[in-house]
C-alpha cells in the first residue's frame, strides 16, 4: 500500500528550470518505491533564504503559510514533502515560527484571509530524504535495486540546508551518515570521511558574490577528487547547481581542470532501480555521469 504525501515541488523543479532534472528522477524513484506525491495545486515560491531584502519577515512567512494552507485544503491528512532544501527549510521554519509567535500567527492569519485561506498548521513539513530514511528505510531501498552501482566511488555532499538547523533523523550536523548510507544501499561505495560533506557552497551568493562563492566551491570538488570520487551526490538543488555548472568558471579562475559529475540521490536510485537514462534525468547532467549512463544502458 503506497505512502502518500502532499508534495511541494518548488520553483527550480519546474519544466525548463534549473533542477527540473531533479523532479524527473524523483518521480521515477518514487514510482519504484511506491511513494505517491500529490502536488499542492497552485503552490507559490517560498522566497528561499535570499528573499529577505525585499520581503520582511511577515511577507516571507506568509508565502509559506499559503502553501501550507493550500496543502491542508487539498490533502488534509498528509504531511508536506519538499525535495528542495530551501523549500523544505523555509516552509518548516515558517510553520514553526507561526507555532512559536502569536504575533506572526495573527499576522499570517490576516494576510491569508486576503487570499481567502486559513491554516491549522498541524502537519509536519518534511524533506524527501526524511521520507526515504524514516518511512522507507535503507533495507527497502536495497531490495528494489536491480542494477547495483558496483565499483562507483561516490562523495556524499550533504551541504547546509538539508542538514542544519533541523538535521535528518537526529543525525549529527558535522558528520551525518544518511547520504552515505543511501549510496551504500544502491551498491556504490560511499566516502564516509569526505571532509567537505557539510561545508557551504555559497548558496544564493553564487549569483551575487561569484568569486567569494567559488572559493567555497573549489575545496568541495577538490576534496571529492582527492578522495578518489567518481562523482558527487547531493540532496540539494542549489548545491547541485553550484558544484556542477560552475566547474568551468572555477577551472578558469584557478587553472584547475575539474570535470566531476554531480548527481541527485534520486538519479542514483532510479538508475539502480533499473530505470532508463531519461527517467533518471541523466540527460540533465551538464557534466555527463558517464559511468551511470553505462549502467543505465546495460
Amino acid at each position, binding site marked *: 500500500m503506497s505512502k502518500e504525501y502532499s508534495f511541494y515541488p518548488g520553483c527550480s523543479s519546474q519544466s525548463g528550470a534549473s533542477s527540473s532534472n531533479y523532479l524527473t528522477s524523483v518521480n521515477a524513484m518514487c514510482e519504484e518505491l511506491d511513494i505517491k506525491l500529490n502536488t499542492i495545486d497552485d503552490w507559490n515560491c517560498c522566497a528561499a533564504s535570499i528573499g529577505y531584502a525585499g520581503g520582511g519577515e511577515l511577507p516571507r512567512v506568509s508565502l509559506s503559510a499559503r502553501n501550507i494552507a493550500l496543502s491542508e485544503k487539498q490533502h488534509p491528512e498528509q504531511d508536506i514533502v519538499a525535495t528542495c532544501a530551501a523549500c523544505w527549510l523555509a516552509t518548516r521554519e515558517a510553520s514553526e515560527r507561526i507555532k512559536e509567535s502569536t504575533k506572526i500567527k495573527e499576522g499570517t492569519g490576516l494576510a491569508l484571509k486576503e487570499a481567502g485561506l486559513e491554516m491549522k498548521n498541524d502537519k509536519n513539513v518534511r524533506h524527501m530524504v526524511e521520507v526515504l530514511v524514516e518511512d522507507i528505510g535503507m533495507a527497502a531501498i536495497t531490495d528494489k535495486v536491480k542494477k547495483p552501482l558496483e565499483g562507483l566511488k561516490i562523495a556524499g555532499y550533504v551541504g547546509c540546508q538539508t542538514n542544519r538547523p533541523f538535521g535528518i533523523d537526529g543525525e*549529527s*550536523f*558535522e*558528520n551525518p551518515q544518511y547520504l552515505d548510507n543511501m549510496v551504500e544501499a544502491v551498491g556504490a561505495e560511499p566516502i564516509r570521511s569526505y*571532509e567537505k560533506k557539510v561545508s557551504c557552497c555559497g548558496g544564493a551568493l553564487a549569483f551575487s558574490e561569484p568569486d567569494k562563492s567559488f572559493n567555497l566551491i573549489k575545496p568541495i570538488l577538490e576534496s571529492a577528487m582527492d578522495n578518489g570520487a567518481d562523482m558527487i551526490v547531493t540532496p540539494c538543488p542549489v548545491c547541485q547547481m553550484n558544484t556542477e555548472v560552475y566547474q568551468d568558471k572555477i577551472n578558469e579562475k584557478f587553472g584547475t581542470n575539474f570535470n566531476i559529475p554531480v548527481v541527485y540521490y534520486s538519479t542514483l536510485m532510479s538508475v539502480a532501480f533499473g530505470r532508463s537514462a531519461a527517467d533518471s534525468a541523466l540527460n540533465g547532467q551538464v557534466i555527463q555521469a558517464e559511468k551511470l549512463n553505462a549502467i543505465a544502458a546495460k
Partner: protein
Amino acid sequence: MSDIVATNETILVVGGGISGISAALEAAEAGKQVILVEKNAYIGGRVTQLHKYFPKLCHPTCGMEINQRRAKTNPNLTILTMAEVTDISGDKGDYSIKVKLKPRYVNNNCTACGQCTDAVDAEFDSEFNYGLNQRKGAYIAYNNAYPQTYVLDERIIGTDDATKAKDACPADAIDLDMVEESIDLKAGAVVWATGWRPFDANKIQPYGYDRFDNVITNVEFERMNDLMGPTGGKVVRPSDGAEPKKIAFIQCAGSRDRNYLKHCSRICCMASLKQTHYVRENITDGTSDIYYIDIRAIDRFEDFYQKVQQDETVKFIKSKVAFITEGENNNPVLNGVDTEGYHRYANEYDMVVLAVGMEPSVNQSDFPVEIVMNEEGFIEMDEKNGGVFAAGCSSDALDVNRAVQSATASALRAVQVINQVGAVSPQNEGAK
C-alpha cells in the same frame, strides 16, 4: 551480608566518592551508625583518578589515605562496595532500602598479594584509566584502593582464566560461586552523594573527539600525568606516542552550552589552569594555549589564575573554538575567532585537551525515590525530599573543597533526623 545491623537510627550514604566518604565519616565520628554504599569495587570515586588538586597542587591520595584510616578505625561505619541502591521506600525517619550487591568473586581472605593478576591472561580496557590502557581480568583498580581486595571481572567467569585465578590464590580468597544478591536495610535518613561523570566528548561533534586521535579530554590528561598511570606519567599523543609540545585547552567543552550541558561546570577553568602546570613540569618547552569564554577562577582561586597568567608558556584566547580539523601528522587545527578585537585563527597543535564538564551521575528517571531536581539534573534542596539529602556534585557542579563542605552540611541534616527519631538524643538528655 546478613550481619549488617541497620535501624531507623542508621544513616545511609549513597556513593563513596569524596563527598560520600566525608559525609559518612563526619556522621560516624559524631557517634552515628552509618552504612556507605558504593557502586565501584573501591571507595574514593573520581578524585582517586586525579593527579593533583588545584590550587595547592597536592595529591588526592594524601587526603584519601587519611579518610581511609578514619574509615578503618571507626566502628560506626560499614562500607558496602560493588553495591547499588535499587529502591527507597518509606518516609523521613523510617526508610526501607533495597541494595543490590554485585559478586566480586573474591572474599575477605584476599591479602592483595596479586598472584591472581599474574595468573590470568584476559585483558580489558581499564575503566580507572578511561580506557587509555588495559588491565587484567583479575585486578585491583589502583595501588591504594580500599578495600585492598582484588576483583574478578565478570567477563572471565566461566572461562579458564577464572580457574587459573582460583588456583593461583594462596589464600583461598576466590569464590567463583558468588552471585548477585539483594539485601534490605533500614535507615532514618539518606545522604545522596553519587557525584558526577565527565560529559561524553563524542557528543561535541565540531571538536571531533570521535574522529581525531589527538583530541583528548581533561580527565584523560589527568591519568596521563600520574606516575602510576597508564603512560607512567608521560604525556603522549594517542596517534603516535610522541610527546606533544604545543597543547591547547578548550574550555566549556560541553558546558555553558544549550546543545549539551546548560550549566557552568565550575571546575574546568581551574582544572585547565592546573593542567598548564603539568605541561610545564612534564614537557620540556611545552606550551599551553587556553581558549575560554570567561575564566572562572572564583574567590581565592584568583591568586592561582594570576600566577598562571604570569607564566610565559601559557596564552589565553577569548574564544569558543568553532571547530577542529585535522592537519598534517594528525595535528588538530583549531578554527575560530579571537573575540577580543576580532582575530581569525586556524592554529595547529600537537594535542588538544577538551575541558569537559560534569554531568550528574544519576538522572531523575533512574532515581529510586521521589526527588526534586532542577533541569540541569542536580538535586534541589526541598522539603519534598524528606529525609534524603544531596551531598557534593549531586547538588551542584562543585570543586572538591565545596563538595566536602556540602557533604559535611548534609551529614548534619541527616544527624538532625536521627536525633529526632533517636531513642537517646541530645534533646532528651538536654544540656549541662
